[in-house]
């Protein structure tokens, strides 16, 4: 039996004016388990707290009920006070007789009756309270960043600058990501490589950062502060330590049929290759599918010409296992496939290209050396049509329901750059809406119209009809004029929707991080916790969470880094003690609880279960206290009631119900 003390606060006249506090005290004395009750002017004052602390010691209280304001106000205060007096803080409960009683009722009789009921419910609950202790878990002071684009690089740099070790895992042979493929960036038109490559080099040179390129995360176990991750380092076939990056191998490689991923398939590359000149690390990989040596066993040219002897055809995939305290997903995006959009003739005509392809064409290191030309005949285009929202904002099965966010701005950029460099070229943009919320964004777009006279037409394009003479007849609508527009273009650029990189889905499963219907990783709270995943210790950086431009990506990357630093700066993590726990004897092992857990906190183990007349190995649910946030979804999903929640147990809530309904 508990020894409970009840303390009723007057809150000046806030409570006492409407609730007969003396009567509440008297009624409290009659409740089972209550050994002491008193009232006081201001329970939260130092004197009030002293009264509670004294009573705990003097009366040997095992539980306390404070009838006062909302627990959201002073529960923490009173629990700290109880702890100071040697009582487990979770043995204290609040009966909210101010916000939920005295402040909303006028009649003293009614308010007092209700206050008594609320007090009884709290006493009934405390009778069933048990001391709870926050667990502790160790924090491994190292972070993992998955994805080596601008998001991943920035996050890693920020974490490393704070003095923590960071590993970057990147699946392609070089870090840099999509930003490395861009020519210029909006709204300032500075060169993408000029601002990105210094960061890539800085990351590579940073003593706290390790970079695993051509590598993928294979397996993740553990929980916040203590993850264990298997990383597959794919066989590069080139010894990263020996290679000097001289590039002779790429020059001499006889197989030059593979399509360059970096140039979006618009040019060819050798079988041994670095994706681009500024690659970090500047060490090539052998693409075994295209390598003659791997296909036929004969060749070996690269090995012969390599002055450093770095080529190793025998190299195998290697799995390394490492521990991390926090993981950041920065898996980025790709453009959607346009196979199903052939009304725009993307498959039929080489002169219908995506914006990212145009980005490569405009780039000095790109397939055309930076000259704007048609891929079909190498002629400079005179009429270019841009089509917006190809696959974005679609309610049909072909496209994506969301706005890809970056297309309006990069199209304005492309239009402006083309008009600037090739003033004779006519540029038309078909748009549905021009969306430019961002610093200096609308000004940028207006410049395209006002200074560069880009022809913006509100309307979509219905069909692009390739003509026998090689031009492209663009049939669009101008819905402001209410007419159809026909333009004889010689290049059409499609602003294809972006989608999360396909690896995000697999990764989400490994991390037990949730993804939305579009494949974006879900944030813990859309407003208040935008860079955290609902799974503790997993953070989100960049487009893997939702469409973003570069400035937004960088700021989110920084925010994710701060969250990681905050986590890694702790030696130990205190865990919320109000977590779920399964009664092994009753658990069916049916997985219903795990299916509703938003945090992946529930796993199953084959455990030897011992009880009266029972001793066997069973599959039972095990809650990881470090991950569980205590929502209780599992307790209701569990049919047998084996799953219960500390602090809000089935018996406690039932007791409250009973106390109210009597």
């Amino acid at each position, binding site marked *: 039996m508990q020894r409970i003390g009840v303390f009723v606060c007057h809150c000046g006249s806030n409570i006492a004016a409407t609730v007969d506090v003396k009567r509440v005290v008297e009624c409290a004395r009659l409740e089972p388990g209550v050994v002491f009750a008193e009232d006081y002017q201001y329970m939260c004052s130092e004197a009030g707290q002293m009264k509670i602390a004294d009573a705990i010691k003097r009366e040997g209280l095992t539980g306390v009920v404070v009838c006062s304001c909302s627990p959201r106000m002073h529960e923490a205060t009173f629990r700290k006070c109880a702890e100071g007096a040697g009582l487990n803080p979770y043995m204290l409960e609040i009966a909210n007789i101010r916000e939920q009683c005295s402040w909303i009722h006028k009649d003293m009789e009614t308010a007092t009756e209700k206050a008594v009921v609320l007090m009884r419910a709290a006493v009934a609950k405390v009778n069933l309270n048990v001391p709870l202790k926050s667990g502790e878990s160790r924090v491994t002071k190292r972070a993992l960043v998955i994805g080596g684009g601008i998001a991943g690089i920035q996050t890693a740099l920020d974490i490393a600058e704070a003095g923590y070790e960071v590993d970057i895992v990147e699946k392609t042979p070089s870090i840099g990501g999509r930003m490395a493929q861009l020519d210029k960036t909006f709204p300032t038109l500075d060169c993408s490589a000029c601002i990105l490559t210094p960061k890539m080099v800085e990351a590579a040179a940073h003593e706290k950062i390790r970079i695993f390129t051509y590598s993928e995360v294979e397996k993740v176990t553990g929980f916040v502060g203590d993850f264990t991750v298997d990383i597959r380092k794919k066989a590069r076939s080139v010894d990263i330590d020996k290679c000097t990056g001289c590039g002779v191998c790429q020059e001499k490689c006889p197989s030059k049929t593979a399509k360059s991923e970096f140039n979006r398939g618009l040019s060819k590359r050798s079988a041994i290759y670095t994706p681009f000149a500024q690659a970090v690390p500047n060490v090539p990989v052998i693409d075994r599918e295209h390598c003659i040596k791997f296909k036929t066993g004969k060749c070996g040219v690269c090995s012969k010409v390599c002055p450093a002897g770095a080529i190793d055809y025998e190299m195998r995939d290697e799995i390394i296992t490492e521990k991390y305290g926090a993981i950041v997903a920065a898996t980025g995006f790709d453009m959607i496939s346009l196979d199903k959009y052939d*009304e725009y003739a993307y498959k039929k005509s080489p002169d219908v290209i995506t914006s990212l392809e145009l980005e490569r064409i405009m780039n000095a290191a790109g397939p055309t050396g930076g000259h704007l030309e048609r891929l079909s005949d190498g002629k400079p285009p005179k009429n270019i049509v841009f089509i917006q*929202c190809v696959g974005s*904002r*679609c*309610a*049909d099965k*072909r*496209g994506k329901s969301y706005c890809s966010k970056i297309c309006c701005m990069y199209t304005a950029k492309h239009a402006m750059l083309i008009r600037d460099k090739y003033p004779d070229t006519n540029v038309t943009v078909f748009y*549905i809406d021009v969306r430019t919320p961002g610093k200096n964004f609308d000004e940028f777009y207006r410049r395209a119209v006002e200074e560069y006279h880009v022809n913006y037409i*509100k*309307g*979509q*394009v*219905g*069909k692009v009809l390739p003509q026998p003479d090689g031009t492209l007849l663009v*049939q*669009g*609508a*101008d*819905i402001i004029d*209410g*007419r*159809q*527009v026909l333009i004889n273009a010689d290049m059409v650029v499609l602003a294809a929707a972006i989608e999360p990189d396909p690896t995000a889905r697999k990764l989400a499963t490994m991390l037990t991080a949730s993804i939305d219907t579009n494949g974006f990783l879900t944030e813990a709270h859309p407003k208040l916790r935008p860079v955290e995943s609902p799974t503790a210790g997993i953070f989100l950086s960049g487009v893997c969470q939702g469409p973003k431009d570069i400035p937004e990506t960088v700021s989110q990357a920084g925010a994710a880094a701060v969250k990681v630093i905050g986590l890694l700066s702790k030696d130990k993590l205190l865990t919320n003690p109000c977590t779920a726990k399964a009664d092994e004897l009753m658990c069916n092992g049916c997985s219903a609880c795990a299916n509703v857990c938003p945090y992946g906190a529930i796993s199953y183990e084959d455990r030897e279960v011992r009880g009266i007349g029972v001793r066997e190995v069973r599959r039972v649910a095990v809650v990881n206290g470090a991950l569980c946030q205590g929502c209780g979804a599992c307790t209701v999903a569990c049919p047998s009631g084996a799953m219960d929640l500390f602090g809000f147990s089935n018996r406690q809530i039932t007791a409250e119900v009973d106390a109210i309904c009597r």
Partner: protein
Amino acid sequence: MTKAEKQAELIRDISGVDPYKCMKCGKCTATCPSYAEMDIKPHQFVSFVIRGEIEALTKSRSLEKCLSCFACIERCPRSVEPGRLIDAARQLAARERGGGFLTTEEVPEMCDPDTPSQLLVSAYRRYRR
């Protein structure tokens, strides 16, 4: 409910189109092969239904000019499918006028020796009740 509102509802019922899904991109008009002949353009149909201006719709030349080629239905990114609205408006007009857009008397002179029966059947179905 006014007559116009009733008719608007009827059109929405017959067509199954939710005009509020339209984001006014104009792809229907961009794609329509006979847009030039139309007084009310395909993308405007939605607004007429929303505003309840059904009489203008049922009197529109567009009803006869629509080729029922389903291109606007296929390419509509919001699955609004304006072609259905046009068809529903044509239905409504045909039902109201009793005889529809085509009288039996005028048919023979429209035919030639090669006219496939399919054309006659479909014309009757499109233009008459």
